[in-house]
């Protein structure tokens, strides 16, 4: 005897995209909504102050119930793929919310590389705005030519500390326009949540509630009886009627002891479990009628995984900076997200933080002598005479079709389902241009250091063996059903009542943090579902 869940709309996953899809459906339809989450409840808000302290003192996880031990990806999965609890990975996030640039959607048209998305920046602008208003984003607009937007941010920008004020002056000298990084952190009380208290642990845990995280939305929807939250249910298969192509129901199991079987019936199904688990579920859902899995007539499910890499450096500057003022907040520039006409293709963002690198206490001097007591203090004070900045640039990495998620028969969960295996691979355009991109960014860092009378004291590239950052793709959108999985609204080409929301639909991953775009795409999908 299996448990049966019925609703008009079924959303698989309860992360940030799923939560805001649920909110939009709740606002724009009268139907019943079931949200299905494989994990359990997250750490309650009342426990987060203590959890933060344990993290600071002992590096303990504030989110100890956020994963299923037998549900994990192998390969180069940047990020914590088994993150399964209410709120998903966005319980950990740093709440950094840049928009992609208009160029991202028109790479072929504007720069002659890769492909255009089936939608434009202008198509997404109202959904960006809606995402910013629903989450609560503090921000200021950069120069409109490189940072266009239809309406102002819902909250003023997070104010700049004296450190960031000085660093912005330094960037000005280097000819770079920088501004306060838009963030899902309240600069004023917003939506019933507190103003930021610069606790400086946004990642991994905000104790004040000033940072947006999905459980705020989900708890409110549950309290209002607008959604039914079904935790500890792992969806393992999607089933379709081969005559009509319509999805009939989902099947899965309780992840609690006993593993009760569960069936979920709905009119519309929205898969919002992130880039790993969405493609994985579709690939698992094979049958005689669908030998390659659901929504996979094109063979593109799991393909074109997209992310980006970064270069970062620490620059010593003749500035007096005070580490710990609001260290997770940064300056940002989109100046380099547009390629000047005639230049070789390189796109990247740029962020600047205060840094304590090279300013910390040390216990040995250059000669290897042990420093204790007064000598240690004198050495430390001397090292703080100059300041340091951390600079980082995410650069565009265009995905190859063979950048893919496959099923790994060598790693199975308790029900015998093969786990996902991730393998990122660059498109030939990126392979050919990677060295130039990295050299260009390093040259920029050196130029910035020189402009401030400083020097680069360390630099590194993101490790390629852990995959790419802010990943998406695997169910990319497109107008051609032969080369894409969903249309520009996130609707599966093969199944009229199946939708994919957020990160998996990305065609490319831009060169900045992706979460806001994932949510905006999800809200656009919700608009399509509600229609």
């Amino acid at each position, binding site marked *: 005897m299996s448990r049966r869940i019925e609703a008009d709309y079924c959303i698989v996953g309860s992360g940030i995209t799923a939560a805001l899809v649920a909110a939009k459906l709740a606002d724009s339809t009268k139907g019943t909504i079931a949200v299905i989450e494989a994990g359990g409840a997250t750490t309650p808000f009342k426990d987060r102050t203590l959890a933060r302290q344990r993290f600071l003192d002992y590096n303990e996880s504030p989110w100890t119930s956020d994963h299923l031990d037998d549900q994990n990806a192998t390969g180069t999965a940047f990020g914590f*793929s088994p993150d399964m609890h209410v709120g998903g990975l966005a319980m950990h996030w740093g709440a950094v919310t840049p928009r992609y640039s208009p160029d991202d959607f028109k790479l072929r048209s504007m720069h002659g590389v890769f492909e255009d998305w089936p939608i434009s920046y202008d198509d997404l602008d109202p959904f960006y705005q809606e995402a910013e208003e629903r989450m609560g984003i503090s921000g200021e607009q950069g120069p409109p030519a490189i940072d266009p937007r239809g309406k102002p941010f819902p909250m003023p920008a997070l104010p700049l500390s004296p450190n960031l004020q000085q660093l912005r002056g330094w960037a000005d000298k280097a000819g770079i326009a920088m501004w306060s990084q838009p963030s899902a952190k309240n600069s004023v009380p917003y939506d019933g949540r507190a103003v*930021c208290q610069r606790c400086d642990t946004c990642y991994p845990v905000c104790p004040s509630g000033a940072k947006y995280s999905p459980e705020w939305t989900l708890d409110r929807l549950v309290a209002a009886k607008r959604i039914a939250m079904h935790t500890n249910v792992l969806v393992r298969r999607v089933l379709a009627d081969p005559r009509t192509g319509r999805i009939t129901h989902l099947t899965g199991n309780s992840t609690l002891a006993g593993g009760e079987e569960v069936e979920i019936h709905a009119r519309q199904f929205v898969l919002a479990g992130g880039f790993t688990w969405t493609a994985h579920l579709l690939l698992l859902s094979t049958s005689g009628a669908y030998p390659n899995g659901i929504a996979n007539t094109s063979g593109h499910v799991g393909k074109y995984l997209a992310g980006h890499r970064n270069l970062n450096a620490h620059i010593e500057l003749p500035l007096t900076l005070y580490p710990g003022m609001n260290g997770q907040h940064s300056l940002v520039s989109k100046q380099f997200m547009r390629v000047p006409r005639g230049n070789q293709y390189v796109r990247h963002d740029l962020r600047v933080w205060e840094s304590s690198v090279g300013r910390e206490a040390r216990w040995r001097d250059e000669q290897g002598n042990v420093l204790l007591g007064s000598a240690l203090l004198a050495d430390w004070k001397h090292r703080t005479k100059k300041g340091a900045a951390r600079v980082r640039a995410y650069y565009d990495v265009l995905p190859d079709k063979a950048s893919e998620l496959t099923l790994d028969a060598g790693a199975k969960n308790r029900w015998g389902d093969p786990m996902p295996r991730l393998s990122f691979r660059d498109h030939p355009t990126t392979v050919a241009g990677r060295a130039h991109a990295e050299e260009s960014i390093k040259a920029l860092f050196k130029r910035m250091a020189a402009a401030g009378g400083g020097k680069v004291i360390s630099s590194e590239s993101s490790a390629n063996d852990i995959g790419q950052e802010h990943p998406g793709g695997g169910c990319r959108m497109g107008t051609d059903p032969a080369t894409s999985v969903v249309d520009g609204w996130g609707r599966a080409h093969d199944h009229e009542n199946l939708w994919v929301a957020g990160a998996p639909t990305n065609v490319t991953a831009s060169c900045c943090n992706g979460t806001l775009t994932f949510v905006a795409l999800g809200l656009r999908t919700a608009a399509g579902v509600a229609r």
Partner: protein
Amino acid sequence: MTTNRRSFLKASAATAAGLAAGCTTERRGGAAAAGFALEPALLDAVAEVVLPIELGAERRASAVAGFRAWIAGFEPAAEELHGYGEQEVRFTPAHPGPQWNAQLAQLDALARRQHRRGFAQLDAPKRDAMVRAQLARLKGGDRMPGVLAAPHVALALLAHWAESSAATDFVYGAAIGKDSCRTLATVTALPTGARS
């Protein structure tokens, strides 16, 4: 400061045995931490030579108390934060307290062998020289280790202080309040005491 060496070693051994039998501290909303204690007189004697004298007695006592509280609250095998780029769930290691107590006991034993007095009874220059000699044998660079990773109790104490908000404020001569939750309204101003 007096140390009964035999009782100290006995207590250390008993604590280590308790840990081996699965005794751990409570955490997060449970009962008060059972705690693990380093031998107080020896720890104070180490603190006097590794922490800057410029701190004064009150700040030094506060630094030592903070370190003691840290040790008392430590829980082995607690789940660690799994950061971006990490797929593996990791857990905190074995309690460092027994090893650190053993190092304190070793300092004490060495003092008795070399100077015929307990470590805590030695004058500061002798204690300083003994701690330096211990640390000089350690491998690794100049970077202050994380407290848990510190290979010697003297370095653990130093690292715990150097990580603290109080130490940062002391070194910069400004009330920065690192790691504290503070009002956003004052973020645009230099911290009190800062050089303008």
